[in-house]
């Protein structure tokens, strides 16, 4: 079985899914001839031609708006937004239409489409190229939000997203695009949406994270001795896998949530609310959040201080465990 990094895994998923289903097409800026600024859509144009792999003019709202028109007429567009910093222009079409066409037409029409975008910081890039914007989209009812933390899940989740009848925003943590390789099987397999994954077993502290921060947590756990940490990778941010969170917190009674999104109204807040509703009596320490600060992501000279790092997470785990 080949070892692939995340770029290769996503590329493989696109190739296989477009092979299997002629309705699936890829559109976005610089995805055809150039193969995508991160080379994620490499080779699609040669294989499927310019009718199904479309280099569009530079207009994010235009791209998503047209994709909605295509989706309701039976096509399954997979749209690339070049950077999450440019996704704000898609919120109008997604929030006002794509997410509620099924609701408005009482099921007569639905919007089967995926919006893919590189996500998050840690690559020393320009402004608007290191942001974490998930909260904007989690808040839109009718839109699913998915983010893989490793190549295996990346392929499985993308295939599930493409086959999901409702619109899905699929964020790809660009810091992990080439960070490591792992076994990624060829051929058909899916990772179901809406399910988190327990990466480590432990009875003392539950650590919840997603995307590029999962690797940060894994590094942090190495720094922490004699504390049994249970690391959960959410994989799908909306709809949230409540069961895996509640079961774990009921067992450990202590929880740390790690995300690079800004702290206020980050998904961490929602998770704490759900825990308070369903596992309050089990809590033995206040839930701690290690997140980005409530400031715009600074340019590279200060970016590393903004982002959660293994040291901050390790300290949070120790403080929560010894509360």
């Amino acid at each position, binding site marked *: 079985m080949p070892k692939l990094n995340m770029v290769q895994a996503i590329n493989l998923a696109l190739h296989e899914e477009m092979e299997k289903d002629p309705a699936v097409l890829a559109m976005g800026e610089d995805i055809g001839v150039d193969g995508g600024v991160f080379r994620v859509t490499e080779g699609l144009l040669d294989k499927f031609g310019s009718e199904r792999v479309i280099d569009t003019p530079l207009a994010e709202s235009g791209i998503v708006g047209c994709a909605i028109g295509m989706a309701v007429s039976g096509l399954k567009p997979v749209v690339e937004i070049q950077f999450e910093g440019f996704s704000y222009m898609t919120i109008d079409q997604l929030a006002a239409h794509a997410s509620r066409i099924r609701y408005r037409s009482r099921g007569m029409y639905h919007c089967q489409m995926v919006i893919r975008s590189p996500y998050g910081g840690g*690559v020393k890039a*320009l402004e608007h190229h290191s942001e974490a914007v998930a909260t904007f989209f989690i808040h839109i009812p009718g839109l699913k939000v998915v983010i893989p933390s490793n190549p295996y899940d990346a392929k499985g989740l993308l295939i599930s997203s493409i086959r999901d009848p409702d619109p899905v925003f699929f964020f790809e943590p660009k810091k992990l695009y080439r960070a*490591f390789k792992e076994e990624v099987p060829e051929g058909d397999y899916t990772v179901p949406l809406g399910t988190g994954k327990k990466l480590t077993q432990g009875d003392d502290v539950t650590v919840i994270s997603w995307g590029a921060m999962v690797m940060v947590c894994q590094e942090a756990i190495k720094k922490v001795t004699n504390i049994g940490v249970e690391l959960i990778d959410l994989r799908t941010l909306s709809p949230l896998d409540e069961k895996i969170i509640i079961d774990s917190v009921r067992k450990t009674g202590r929880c740390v949530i790690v995300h690079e999104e800004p702290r206020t109204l980050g998904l961490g807040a929602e998770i704490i609310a759900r825990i308070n509703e369903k596992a309050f009596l089990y809590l033995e320490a206040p839930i701690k959040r290690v997140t980005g600060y409530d400031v715009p992501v600074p340019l590279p000279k200060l970016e590393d201080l903004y982002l959660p790092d293994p040291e901050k997470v390790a300290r949070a785990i120790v403080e929560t465990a010894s509360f």
Partner: protein
Amino acid sequence: MVMGDIVTGCDVLVIGGGPGGYSAAIRASQLGKDVILAERYGLGGACVYRGCIPSKALIHAANFIYDIKNPGDMGIKGSVEFDYKKIQQWKFQVVKKLRDGIEKLCKKYGVQVIKGEAYFESPEKARITAPDGMISKVQFKNAIIATGSRSRDFPELPVDGKLVIDSNGALGLMKVPEDMVIIGGGYIGVELGTMFAKLGTKVNIVQDSSRILSIFDSELVEVVSRQMKKLGIEVYLNAVFSGVHDESNKAVVAISDDKKKETQLKADKILVAVGVEPNIENIGLENTHVELTESGFIKVDGKQQTTDPKIYAVGDVTGPPLMAHKALRQGKVAAEVLSGLPGAFDNRAIPLTVFSDPEIAAVGLDEESARKNGFEIKTGKFPFRALGSAQALDKTEGFVKVVARTNGEILGLHIVGSKASTLIGEASHSIEMAAFLEDLAGTLHPHPTLPEALAEAAEAALGKVIHI
């Protein structure tokens, strides 16, 4: 709109695609490691491009031509002409096949090859700059430095690629020069001098010390010196380069010997072959904990580990003997050690060869160094002229000499003569297996073949040889 720098993660970053580099990369990949190999020019390194392979190919061609012209008195009359350009094209085909072969091997074993120059930014991270300037960043758990060596420059005669050339330049010449002056009597000077002499060039070798091929036993070198004289090669010992000026269409090199005697030598080409130096500059060593030896090579232990626990080093860059076969073995050792296997470069013997005429090959200690190491020794010598097969092959110059401790443990085997570079393989195996004279003498060698000389030499050392 813009990517930022995406760091590629891997288990092992190998810097340099020569014998040391590609063997380490492939072996590590076979052991399940995710390997990236960064090579500035072409896979195969100096060995394939400007060293072992091209030189041996051209030497073979030159010998072929020379042997036809000088068949000896066997009753064969021969005449030959050759197109040197076509020989060069054939040589390039050989080089290309080997490089493509290595490329296929890397692909087969999943080694990711990146063309570019690597530079350590820290003990865990490196930057690879491709020829077009694009930079890729690599994070590694272990790195293996296999940057090899390059010919040392001779300050008074900077290589300009036209008049003054280095070994790489010499191997690439499209026309056989009429007159050639070679600065340096090491194995490169002797090998290329012999080759060009056989192709018709008037060769003069200038050596600043009292002996050419100084690391070999003087008796061996004696035989080669005699043959070089026959080939019309002039060797100037204790001679130093003192200047060069143009005269009509040729350059004239002035040299002076220890008695201040001046000599003028005509030269179309001046080959500078004064040794090699390790490629340790601008690869960012200062950002790691790798330390160098006094002589400027990378310090490594028997497991090829440098003083930086994450970083290994193999091949020429770790110091003499500068042999491709040492690099190949060290590459595998490094790959095994960092995969947790008990590898170690603990070879008792590293064979050295010179493709002169006749060839020289030696392994282990010679008489002088054996005594200096405090061993009581006994030696045995067997001349090829006393060997049936040598007579039958009409190649009777040279001899085999064995150096052993009084208790029979073989310390060194030294050969000068036809096919010496092939015979040394068995000699190397003997020393590696810690063989005794009885073992070598007791081994049956097919008759009539040249290797018999090894057994005969052993018997000579045991005082029971019958053929002399």
